[in-house]
């Protein structure tokens, strides 16, 4: 996982829960660095450990941690030099969602060893998209829910998110039903 992800976890914990909690999480994980190099590779295991430790220290479930992180990720990457990337990926939520796969593909080609997830869509009707989420990493779908919630806030567009098919329940991949109402859709 790129350091950017760990940096976002750190930023999330510090901004929402304070430095003390982050220090506790670090101690639990056994990480003694001060910060992460955003473009350097870190073992996936480290990120999972942070999620586990955050769940213990903050007394919330790992799914809640992932979801909070997904939502924060949009805000964080938007601020941390990726805002322009977001900007050119679409001016509406729908356009952005459609470009999401292309965005990940292009970014994936530029970074060695990046294993980006993939997002494809079936158009159910004008308001509704069925999103197919594929990832080599298992169990991160709560983060996708959070991510979508974050995008809904970024584009100031109400978005109803249903998650009828989940890889954690045995499906080959997760499916989300996304229904846009109002806003810039």
């Amino acid at each position, binding site marked *: 996982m790129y*350091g*950017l992800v760990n940096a976002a976890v750190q930023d999330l914990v510090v901004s929402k829960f304070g430095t003390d909690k982050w220090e506790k999480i670090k101690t639990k994980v056994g990480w003694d660095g*001060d*910060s992460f*190099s*955003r*473009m*350097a590779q870190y073992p996936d295991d480290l990120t999972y450990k942070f999620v586990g430790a955050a769940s213990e220290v903050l007394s919330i479930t790992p799914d809640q941690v992932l979801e909070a992180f997904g939502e924060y990720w949009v805000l964080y990457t938007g601020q*941390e*030099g*990726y805002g*322009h*990337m977001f*900007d*050119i*990926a*679409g*001016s509406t939520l729908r*356009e952005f969602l459609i*470009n999401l796969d*292309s*965005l990940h593909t*292009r*970014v994936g*080609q*530029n*970074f060695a060893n990046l294993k980006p997830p993939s997002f494809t869509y079936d158009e159910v009707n004008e308001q509704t998209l069925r999103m197919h989420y594929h990832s080599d990493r298992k169990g991160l779908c709560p983060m996708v829910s959070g991510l979508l919630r974050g995008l809904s806030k970024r584009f100031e567009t109400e978005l109803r998110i249903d998650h009828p098919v989940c890889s954690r329940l045995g499906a080959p991949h997760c499916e989300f039903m996304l229904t846009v109402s109002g806003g810039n859709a």
Partner: protein
Amino acid sequence: MHENATKVGFGAHLIGEIFPFHLGFDEQLRVVQHGVGVTKVCPDVRDGVRFGELFTVYRPRTEASFADFRRAAASTFFIDSIATKVRMRGQMGFDTESGLLFFIGTPWFVDIDELRRSQLGLKDFTVHDPIVDFLYMVQAKTLALADATKFSETIAKQRDELMRTNEELARASAAKSQFLANTSHELRTPLNGIMGMGALLQLEDLPRHHRNYADKIMGSAKALLVVVNDVLDFSKMEAGKLTLEPAEFRLHELAHEVTEVFAASADQKGLDLVCIVGEGVPVRVVADDGRFRQILSNLLGNAIKFTSKGEVVLRIDLVLERTDDYVLRTSVRDTGIGVDEQGKTTLFTPFSQVDGSMARRFGGTGLGLAISKQLAELMGGEIGVESESGVGSTFWFTATLKKSAVFAAPIVHDLSRLYALIADPCATSCDQLRSLLERHGATVDVCEDGAEALRRIDSALAAGRPYDLAVLDVRASSPPGAHVAKAISANPRCHPMRTIVLYTTAQPDAAKMRARVDAFVSKPVNGRKFIQSVARLFGHPVADSIVPPPTVAPRSRSSGKLRLTRVLVVEDHPVNQEVAVSMLATLGYAADVAANGHKAIEAIEQGSYFLVLMDLQMPELDGYAAAAEIRRRERGAKHIPIIALSAHAMEGDRAKALAAGMDDYLTKPVDIAHLAYAIGRWAPAPTEPRPPSSAPRRRTHRSHDRSIDTSVLDKLRKYQRKGAKNIVTDVIEKYLADLPERLLAMRHAAATEDRAGMAAPAHALKSSSASIGAIELGKISAQLEAACLVGDGDTEVTPPTDLVLTLFECLEKESTRVRADLQTILHDQQLHQENTE
């Protein structure tokens, strides 16, 4: 593709889809078609408008003409929009079919924000156009660079902080070292008072419990001095000022002296203490003997401290001999509590003891080994430990010692005809003695107990090859060695056999054994002296064992013609003034005091002093300046010996004192015996001595040719009761009965140069002589006792053996006079009595 296959060009709509940023020009360079993307970055592009109205060419450097563009078709073109300044990158291509010139390109951005500002998005770029990917990559690298810059700034900041902290620490450390040095100096000044007065108190004839108090005060003060010295050394070490002052010394003697210092404490714990100097270890070497002694003392002290039963063995071996120097390995092995693996890692670190409870149980600063390590390294060696918890430890260090200009070959006696038996319960001690005797050619048997010794002696007699020598440790059990000695004395068949009894201070009565013993040798055994004793017993010539002083001869001694007897004490501290004056009085010297350098110079100009004791740190004019001034005024005409007294004990003090013109150097607290020795080196013996403080202080009226001050006896007569036995006769008779035994004990001790063995009878003789008016004999006894006690601590100067032996010789002569005079008095007394009756 085959050459004659039909080639298909782009249709107008396809070229627009695949190349949204293309432009088509006719021969007049007028726009005839363009992609939809072009108008997003250059809104003024319309059909029919000339190239020159819309764009400038940045590269290649060519005229904006159809023909020139065609010619440069293979070049990379950068064209800038005049209206929006957006630059496009691409190439020109001429289509022969349509006769049009095409520019195929894409907007050229190096920052993703420029793309956003041009209101372009992902959808405006075709999939084959990598500009967006390029921008993503640039963005990623920009972020990585920003991170790297941030990290490097953080590191630079941390480095600055670290350097600041380091500087602060260095300052704090320097301040601490200075503080320690100052404190240590401040501590030594009052310690001088305590130890000086304590030493004088010990020389008094005290009731037993008062003596006990005085001994404990001195014991505690000496222990405190060790701590103060450790702290001072540590502060020197921290400041990098711990250096060596090499001088020539006798290594074997030093090892045995240090071991002897610890003999009493080893005895108290019932430990066997053995000192073994291996074969080939040089006799004379050049090194810092004080520091070498310090490491030995530290290792031996620790070994005894941490061992409750068994033995402690000091061993010195020659590792390597080179042209100019020797490499020696010195080890101290014990059978104590040992050190575990973890303990070994911190042992040589300052302030560390194996664990905190050690400090409470065993005391100590935890600095000794750290200082020893540094000293060993300064001597070109290293220090280490091999140990097993509960089994024991061997601490060792190596050191490189320079060769002496004078080669002293070890003396080898031919003892090849000697057949000896050693009975000693300590196996290591047996091994040591056996190896010593065998080294000189003797044949040796060993056994551990007395019964076995007697059996062996009997069977050797029966076999017709009796032992020539029996070496018996008084502790050899069942029966004790003393009994064995008596049994041998009682058996006339054994009489050709010589007997040496080994004893320790724990058996002080050994010397009084009523047995025919040829020599007493105290343990720990000094190998050289042991062999000399054996050699003497068997009539071998023994080289003069008297050791000359290790340092250069005094530059001058005061002229015998003048017979000056006063010493000038230059010292500002009132208690220390009193200490010095009292010590001098005890040694038989009168003294005056000057409180600073100026007063000292005045006093020397006016008075007649044969020697000056000079404190170094004084108000107004310090010792260095005063000494320099005294030397200046002397102009080489005469030379008054000046002995520096310093509480400072810092690096270079000695050198500074000598450079200022002083002749010798003593550190405070001053030991009375060191003082006696130092004065002895530079001055004649006192001619008008003041009696020791235990004797009557008032001036006596003894006739110059008699050894007895009769006024003392007159005083005694006042206590005579009518009808009782004559008190004077009684006292003199008791004294005369006791005197030969004391002299015999001293003679025995002198034969083996056993100083501790001489000190006790000297002490007894000092008091008893004073009480019958044998003032001179009392004084000589006091001096002898003081000289014998040197070496039981922090010695800087060790009086050579000749001082002890010379004093003993004087004592014997004086005792002959005393005996004769007392007998005359007794005779007169009896005549007087008879006459009155």
